[in-house]
């Protein structure tokens, strides 16, 4: 028997590390992977609470999050490839062409 607070704490730590990755890394692909880490920490919490309340709906929700993440990755990586073709870089500090 494990208190549910352990899972909340672990999920919060993983989410914060993912947020740190988004804020500090300059490589667009690594930023993307950090977003995946954040999604994954939320999924862990869904499963933990599904077990607490004995509710399969949490599992279904994680299933949907996975499908949306797969769609997001497909479009996002296509965008990154398109940007790399036209600009020659995926360093987000060099991509400031919208700045007036």
């Amino acid at each position, binding site marked *: 028997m494990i*208190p549910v607070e352990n899972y*909340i704490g672990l999920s919060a730590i993983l989410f914060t590390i993912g*947020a740190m990755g988004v*804020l500090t890394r300059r490589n667009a*692909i690594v930023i993307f992977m950090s977003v995946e880490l954040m999604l994954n920490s939320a*999924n862990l919490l869904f499963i933990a609470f599904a077990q607490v309340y004995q509710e399969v*709906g949490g599992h279904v929700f994680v299933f949907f999050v996975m*499908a949306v993440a797969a769609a997001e990755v497909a479009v996002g990586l296509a965008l990154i490839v398109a940007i790399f073709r036209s600009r020659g870089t995926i360093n987000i500090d060099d991509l400031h062409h919208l700045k007036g």
Partner: protein
Amino acid sequence: MDGNLITFYILALVAIGAALGLLFSKNSVYAALFLILNFATVAVYYLTLGAPFIAMAQVTVYAGAIMVLFLFVIMLLGTEKLAGEDTLIWQKPFAWLLAILLIGVGMYQIALRGVTDAMIHTFPGGDFGSPASIGMILFNQYLLPFEVTSILLLVAMVGAIVLTKGESKKAQK
């Protein structure tokens, strides 16, 4: 301390270590491999929480399909070692401050609520979370979201093809 709690802490150590590896590794291929380790560890958590179907979906979809796509794009673009010089000098300390605030608020909230009596029974066994039980609820109660997700995946697929197609069309003209 019982065995379940020891298992939890060992897995937590691996998961957090892999996440930190993603955060600090200079080479983005290593970052992707650390993320795969993190996903595998979370899949083991799902198994201990009585969600075998989600655990297998995690391994095949996340650690399998999605991360292979990431590694493929990293190697296709050849951006393994992107020079990481900071153009904004104040950005990194500010990001650390915000992250410490975020984790601080989270931990404070957990501490504030006190220990609830919600205990998780690991390795529950039984029918809960089996593919059959998830399939029953997915195709009855959540049928409409399921179909909408299929359309979303189709749109994403078409979008990805359109986004990356541009160059070859110009070449044909």
